[in-house]
């Protein structure tokens, strides 16, 4: 729906979650009513001069603060009129800047409004009188984001210099009850702008242009300095962005606004461990598929046979048929997508490429029959009554009989594709599923969770396998549980049923179920590769064979019995493409 105010710059839901505020380009603040089935326009607040860049509700829901250019307005929600207008000083180190943009506001329950602006200031205002109480100049560049702790005793701001500042409400002297806001800790974990910050009870979370999400635990809230208290940097999305056509050796790369299809090269040479072989044929860039419109690509998939590509944006679903004639590729869009295929969260082709599984954002799971250049809608598994959760992960068994689907919390549902009915549900686990796959022949479903647990569930028998039970009883190695990134892809070797291949961003691992499990005293990470026979004996004594040779690892899959394909995404390449950060004067330069 359109708010009819030009681009929307800011949004804020009321403390009761029943209302939504929208700040628009034309300076209007619009209030919407949120009902379970729709969002309805309620009324406009007093129109302001310029765009509304930030909004914040008073915790009681009676007033709001809106940050605009050069000033902050406080509105009474009931009347919709501006109660106060607080002018922000444009001066910046004595020089009058053209405009002072209020990037963020936060309304505290005691009536204090905290604002952050483009002049590098964090300011405290009294909303009752509309006066400036205190001002902190913290940066030479914009302060772009602010987040307040629920208890309102601390908040965090992020600047364009990549610095995150922590402010705390501390007593003026050690025993007095009078408290004041003090800038306590600066953190510099980003190289570029910190665009957004969040404040959890125990940590500060910041995300910026440098593609990092940084979780910085507050050490005073952490009693035991263990691994949980460590700083974490997350660079890649915890999702699969690459799909692979095994038959044709194709890789489909998903970018924000385009897809790229590459054919892998080949070699005729052989070599020993560690050799790089000369290429007889280099990798080919086959296709560059740009999306129409401004929407980002949500998910994409290439069929195992390589002749179908499907992708989805937030509102549209696209299916393409590829024809290969020698070296030429013929791309044809399948038109007339049915209305229910509006938007998908996950797309998957069956192993024989005859069926397409689409998890729609409405919660339904569609099965589409593909043949020749056409398609036919076979069935839709509707979501369980009473749930609105959409499925975001799919896995299909190689024989095409079983389809597993997982949402974010409610467990994994396994459907019988032949009979088109729900077969069973794997019990819900506390942590979301990050990857799953169904093993050939045995039809064991392997599920990896975000807390690094791995389960194996036998679909025909509807219970966890003995191996999985053993693993749970024995427990994982502590280093395995302490890895930073979740497992994003699982695959199997067709000839070695005891092996599970899985990877996260920093390692790939082959779990050999026939070997004993490592305990906390054994060495989990084996230096790679083994040098002699006795070494092999000693080191392969446990089930986890881990290699960190490729990192950061975006994708790894088994192409055929003897070939693995791995995709690295070097951070330097990402940073090279970023806009330059604000230049900081270093000492002596």
């Amino acid at each position: 729906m359109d708010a009819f105010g030009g681009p929307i710059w800011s949004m804020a839901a009321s403390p009761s979650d029943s209302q939504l505020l929208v700040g628009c380009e034309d300076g209007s603040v619009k209030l919407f009513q949120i009902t379970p089935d729709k969002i309805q326009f309620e009324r406009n607040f007093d129109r302001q001069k310029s765009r509304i860049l930030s909004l914040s509700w008073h915790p009681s829901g009676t007033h709001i603060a809106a940050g605009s250019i050069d000033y902050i307005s406080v509105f009474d929600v009931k009347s919709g009129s501006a109660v106060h207008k607080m002018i922000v000083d444009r001066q910046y180190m004595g020089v009058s800047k053209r405009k002072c943009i209020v990037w963020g506001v936060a309304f505290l329950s005691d009536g204090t409004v905290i604002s952050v602006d483009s002049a590098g200031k964090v300011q405290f205002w009294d909303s009752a009188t509309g006066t400036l109480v205190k001002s902190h100049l913290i940066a030479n560049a914009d302060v772009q984001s602010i987040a307040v702790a629920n208890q309102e005793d601390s908040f965090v701001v992020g600047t364009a210099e990549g610095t995150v500042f922590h402010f705390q409400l501390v007593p003026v002297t050690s025993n007095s009850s009078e408290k004041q806001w003090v800038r306590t800790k600066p953190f510099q974990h980003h190289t570029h702008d910190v665009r957004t910050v969040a404040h959890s009870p125990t940590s500060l979370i910041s995300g910026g242009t440098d593609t990092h999400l940084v979780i910085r635990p507050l050490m005073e809230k952490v009693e035991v300095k263990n691994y949980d208290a460590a700083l974490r940097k997350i660079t890649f999305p915890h999702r699969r962005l690459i799909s692979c056509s095994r038959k044709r050796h194709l890789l489909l790369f998903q970018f924000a606004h385009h897809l790229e299809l590459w054919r892998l090269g080949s070699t005729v040479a052989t070599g020993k461990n560690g050799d790089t072989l000369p290429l007889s044929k280099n990798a080919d860039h086959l296709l560059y598929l740009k999306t129409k419109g401004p929407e980002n690509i949500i998910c994409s998939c290439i069929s195992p046979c390589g002749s179908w590509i499907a992708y989805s944006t937030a509102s549209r679903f696209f299916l393409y048929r590829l024809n290969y004639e020698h070296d030429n590729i013929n791309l044809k869009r399948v038109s007339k997508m049915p209305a229910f295929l509006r938007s998908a969260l996950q797309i998957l082709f069956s192993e024989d490429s005859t069926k397409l599984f689409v998890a729609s954002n409405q919660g339904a799971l569609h099965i589409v029959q593909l043949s020749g250049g056409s398609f036919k809608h076979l069935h839709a598994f509707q979501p369980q009554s009473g749930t609105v959760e959409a499925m975001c992960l799919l896995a299909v068994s190689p024989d095409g009989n079983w389809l597993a689907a997982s949402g974010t919390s409610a467990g994994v549902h396994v459907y019988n594709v032949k009979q088109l009915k729900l077969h069973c549900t794997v019990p819900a686990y506390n942590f979301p599923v990050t990857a799953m796959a169904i093993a050939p022949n045995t039809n064991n479903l392997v599920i990896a969770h975000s807390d690094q647990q791995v389960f194996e569930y036998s679909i025909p028998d509807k219970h966890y396998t003995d191996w999985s039970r053993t693993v749970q009883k024995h427990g994982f190695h502590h280093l395995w549980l302490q890895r930073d990134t979740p497992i994003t892809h699982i695959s199997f070797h067709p000839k070695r049923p005891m092996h599970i291949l899985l990877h996260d961003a920093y390692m790939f691992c082959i779990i050999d179920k026939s070997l004993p499990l490592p305990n906390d005293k054994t060495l989990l990470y084996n230096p790679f590769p083994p040098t002699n026979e006795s070494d092999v004996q000693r080191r392969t004594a446990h089930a986890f064979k881990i290699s960190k040779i490729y990192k950061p690892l975006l994708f790894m899959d088994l192409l055929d019995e003897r070939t693995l394909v791995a995709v690295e995404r070097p951070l330097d390449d990402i940073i090279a493409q970023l806009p330059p950060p604000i230049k900081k004067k270093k000492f002596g330069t």
Partner: protein
Amino acid sequence: MASLEEEFTLSSAVLSAGSEGLLGVEQSSKTDQFLVTDNGRTVILYKVSDQKPLGSWSVKQGQIITCPAVCNFQTGEYIVVHDNKVLRIWNNEDVNLDKVFKATLSAEVYRILSVQGTEPLVLFKEGAVRGLEALLAEPQQKIETVISDEEVIKWTKFFIVFRHPVLIFITEKHGNYFAYVQMFNSRVLSKYTLLFGQDENSVIESFTASVDRKFISLMSLSTDGCIYETLIPIRPTDPEKNQSLVRSLLFKAVVSGNTRHGVAVTVLDQDHIAVLGSPLAASKECLSVWNIKFQTLQTSKELPQGTSGQLWYYGENLFMLHGRSLTVIPYKCEVSSLASALGKLKHSQDPGTHVVPHFVNWETPQECGLGAQNSEQSRRILRRRKIEVSLQPEVPPSKQLLSTIMKDSEKHIEVELRKFLAIKQTPDFHTVIGDTVTGLLERCKAEPSFYPRNCLMQLTQTHVLSYSLCPDLMEIALQKKDVQLLQLCLQHFPDIPELVTCACLKIFLSIADDSLQETDVNMESVFDCSNSVHDEKMEEQTEILQNGFNPVEDECNKCDQELNEEPQAKTKETTSCPVIPKRAALLNAILHSAYSETFLLPHLKDIPAQHITLFLKYLYFLYLKCSENATLTLPGIHPPTLNQIMDWICLLLDANFTVVVMMPEAKRLLINLYKLVKSQISVYSELNKIEVSFRELQKLNQEKNNRGLYSIEVLELF
């Protein structure tokens, strides 16, 4: 700097003030409570901090209060006069003023005056004064007339001077003003005529007075807008004679004289007065605070709704009628100091109460109340807290420890400290350790015999102290020549200034061997000379061979050979340590400490020459030991590194070169050092050559590892 704070309103509707304003605002026996008497029939007791009335009393319809209610500070009762002659006394429990104690007097009362520490006084309209007790004993007693006919009391004030009550009141008759000062210890009443000086036409609008040792300083605000000061002596020179007093101009035209309502002035403290009125005839009324000393306006506050021209000041609060409501403006005058101007926080430290910890522990801000609301603590903490609680006695161990430090014996302190360190992981551990050290050092300074060496050593080893936290610690250790403690400090403090490092060095070099033997110095950085002599000894190569041939021999080598006439002496010098192991350990501590050359150099010049040579000899010995083995390190745990040794040699020579050059006994040493430098240079030039070749090798290796955009590799998996 004097400042007026945000005003607040006590009441808006309760008072029937009228345009004449209030009758009075008076203090009550509790600091925060004030009696407000309106112009009609009501007395209200307000609690200012709560901004609400605590009680309200009214006289009957038809009666009218003629004198503001005051509090008898001795009994806590309230006194009011209605209908000029009827005195009422009541207390908080009373509800109805009709039912309380009543005394009808024989003369009309002008005012009842009450201050802390003495009985209230009753001032009659005829100028007579009586103590309340005496009056109540005989209410109908005859009251004499003091002032003449048509003379009217305009203003009065009651002081305590040297524990004696002094009453002053001003009367007016036909435009002439008279001041009467009544001393109660001597029952002397002196009368003064106030002379106007040149400006005869002005009428005095408001009076205020303050008192110092000898004079009552009476300030008056006239209709011409000026404030005049008159000094009235407390002890009259000649009480019988009628004396005249001349007033002096204090401020010129602070307010416009002809305002609709009155103007008022009141003394705030010895330097400040508050003036109520409009600065210009047309402008709005405002309250301004003036500094008498500097004749400057300190602050002012506009009162747009107008006032009644009345102003009262009690205990940091200014009371006035603003519009129709009683308004309180807190007044504060903080002592200006450089620290506050620089924004430094001042610790208000009450004597007698327990000392505020000087050390703020950022990691546990919750301890000071923040954490009280912090409900999100994990169960783990709660469990541990419980255990701690069960361990702890009623008094927290930290407090107990601090009190122990202040009075107990060294032995006792040591035991207590050990107990405290055993519990260790309290959240305010840093703070307590800091306070403990400061406490100990303060006592050390106060009592020269008190030197709790073991305690200080234990505290130093907690790793939480630093030099800046307790600079006195090293100072005292230096005084006592406690090398052991100094060594510990050098090892544990990250921020020792160069001056102190140098002072330590001086002591370490100068202290006698005998006294060193007695101390228990940590020896781990010193290796045992005796068994390391022949270990791993590299083949001694006297001549450097470059690419197979010998470069031109330096002349100095020859002169060196000439010098080394006794070869035995040379070997002895190189293999035996010039200092005893204990001193070596201390010097190693110096070598390990951090420093900045610029700051260290000037202090190094103060060290006597023979000590410099000794230190240089030791450093040279260390260097030789270093170069004996292939890795260029010294044996032992945590020995000085080669870089540290070289840096110190350079520093010492830089600082004292002229002195050392002149010393004959240092000559050989210098030549040895020169050779040393030369050999170093040749080593580095060789290393540079090797580096180039290595870089090429590395480049080759990198090319091999570079995978490029796409590559196929062979990988053996297990």
